[in-house]
């Protein structure tokens, strides 16, 4: 419950994405999470991000939640129909998961199981609606539940590289807020200054917008992102990594600086995404001074 309480009290929160393993060996996942216990407010458990098959987010969340580590369970529309989604939400709450984050899910063609059939029985707003329906004590068929869940609900928000919001995204955000979303996690942000302008307009809305800080892993990754994705990594960062004697350490330093800068400008929190380099989380937090 720490996440909700701290966001409500307008205290800075730190989320850390914790990818479940592609396999049954959970030692590294648990150890990486444990290494930042007390420094991270909640662990976001992605639901097969980029459509790459992994342990389910529900399984990953339970592994941490059962050890007293607060989790944010990602629930995505891509892989399950409305029965399965509702059933998993009930299971998650019954087993202690207090937060859920509704996401659409990357296209299956972007992942490693290209031949699979996507489900998308519910779309994002309908998924949020389904969560509200369950919290109201009924399922989507209108049947009474034996015990209703009560989640702290979030979703995603797409911000332009310049820290702007498209009109459509803003309208979608308002719909999501009306649908029960209390916090939003953005895609990776590399220009905290640009986000500051956005923060003012977002403050009018009753929802916390939490930017993602992505740990760059190499110059190649930064260049790839600049070339193919709707994100903009400043040249300064690319040059710094390129010239650094210890490039990994420089990447960690940059991520730490971004966390620190976003905190300084009044963001409600950050979501740190290390996509496979979760063991770098202690160093990032140390670099950020949080």
């Amino acid at each position, binding site marked *: 419950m720490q996440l909700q309480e701290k966001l409500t009290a307008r205290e800075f929160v730190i989320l850390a994405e914790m990818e479940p393993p592609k396999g049954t060996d959970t030692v590294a996942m648990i150890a990486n999470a444990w290494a930042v216990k007390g420094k991270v407010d909640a662990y976001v458990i992605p639901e097969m991000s980029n459509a790459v098959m992994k342990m389910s987010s529900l399984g990953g969340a339970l592994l941490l939640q059962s050890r007293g580590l607060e989790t944010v369970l990602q629930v995505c529309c891509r892989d399950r129909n409305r029965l399965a989604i509702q059933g998993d939400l009930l299971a998650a709450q019954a087993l202690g998961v207090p937060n859920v984050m509704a996401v659409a899910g990357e*296209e*299956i*063609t972007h992942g490693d199981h*290209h*031949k*699979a*059939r*996507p489900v998308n029985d519910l779309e994002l707003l309908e998924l949020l609606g389904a969560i509200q329906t369950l919290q109201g004590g009924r399922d989507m068929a209108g049947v009474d539940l034996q015990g209703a869940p009560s989640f702290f609900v979030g979703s995603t928000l797409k911000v332009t590289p310049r820290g702007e919001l498209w009109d459509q995204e803003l309208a979608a955000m308002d719909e999501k807020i009306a649908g029960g979303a209390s916090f939003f996690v953005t895609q990776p942000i590399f220009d905290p200054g640009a986000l500051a302008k956005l923060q003012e307009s977002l403050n009018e809305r009753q929802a916390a917008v939490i930017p993602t800080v992505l740990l760059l892993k190499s110059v190649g990754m930064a260049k790839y992102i600049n070339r193919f994705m709707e994100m903009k990594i400043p040249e300064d960062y690319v040059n710094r990594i390129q010239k650094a004697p210890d490039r990994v350490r420089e990447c960690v330093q940059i991520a730490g600086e971004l966390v620190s800068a976003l905190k300084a400008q009044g963001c409600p929190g950050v979501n740190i995404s290390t996509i496979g380099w979760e063991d770098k989380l202690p160093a990032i937090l140390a670099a950020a001074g949080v």
Partner: protein
Amino acid sequence: MIKAIPKPMEEIIDNVKDFNKLLIAGCDGCVTVCEAGGLKEAKVLASALRLYFTQGGRQAQVDETSLTRQCEKEYLAQLSDRIDQYDAVVSLACGCGIQYLAEMYDKKIVFPGVDTCFLGVNEERGLYSERCQACGRCILAETGGICPIARCSKRMLNGPCGGSEGGKCEVSKETPCGWELIYERLKTLGQLHRFETPTVPKDWTTSRDGGPRKIVREDLRI
């Protein structure tokens, strides 16, 4: 062929009630065969709409026509000299024809007059049933000419689910079990060995699951 059914009159009226000049455009292709959207149905709908407007004290113009196929530009072009005189068009073609008409006349409001249902056969007049889901990779050679994707309620690819009874599907007693049909046909043909070969999980990218599809036949393109 594509099978469709006429939309409920109330739904069509709800869409067109605020317009004064309407064209009802039938299609002489598939929807004529299943008697949902040919010239005959266009005339019936136009008459019904004229009656609706007259009873409401409205002077509305409702004309009807039918094109050879609404899924081809050459036939859609036949409307080019007259479509501007109408406020809106109700197309009785299948979903393909409705969209292609709207695409070709992109400033014209186009409403659907039918619900497009499936790719199927005419069992009898007024009785049509599904046979193909256009998955893009035909497996009828392995299944005795009967498609489990279209004929099995669960789209099972490796034999029956075990829920059928007396040759009928557990989802609906009106539906024959697709896999019983396949098994019996393979037995008749002496091809039961095909039934014993397991299939691997299907590649659905050729179906709608890989996104909107397109066929490019370089051998046919000029």
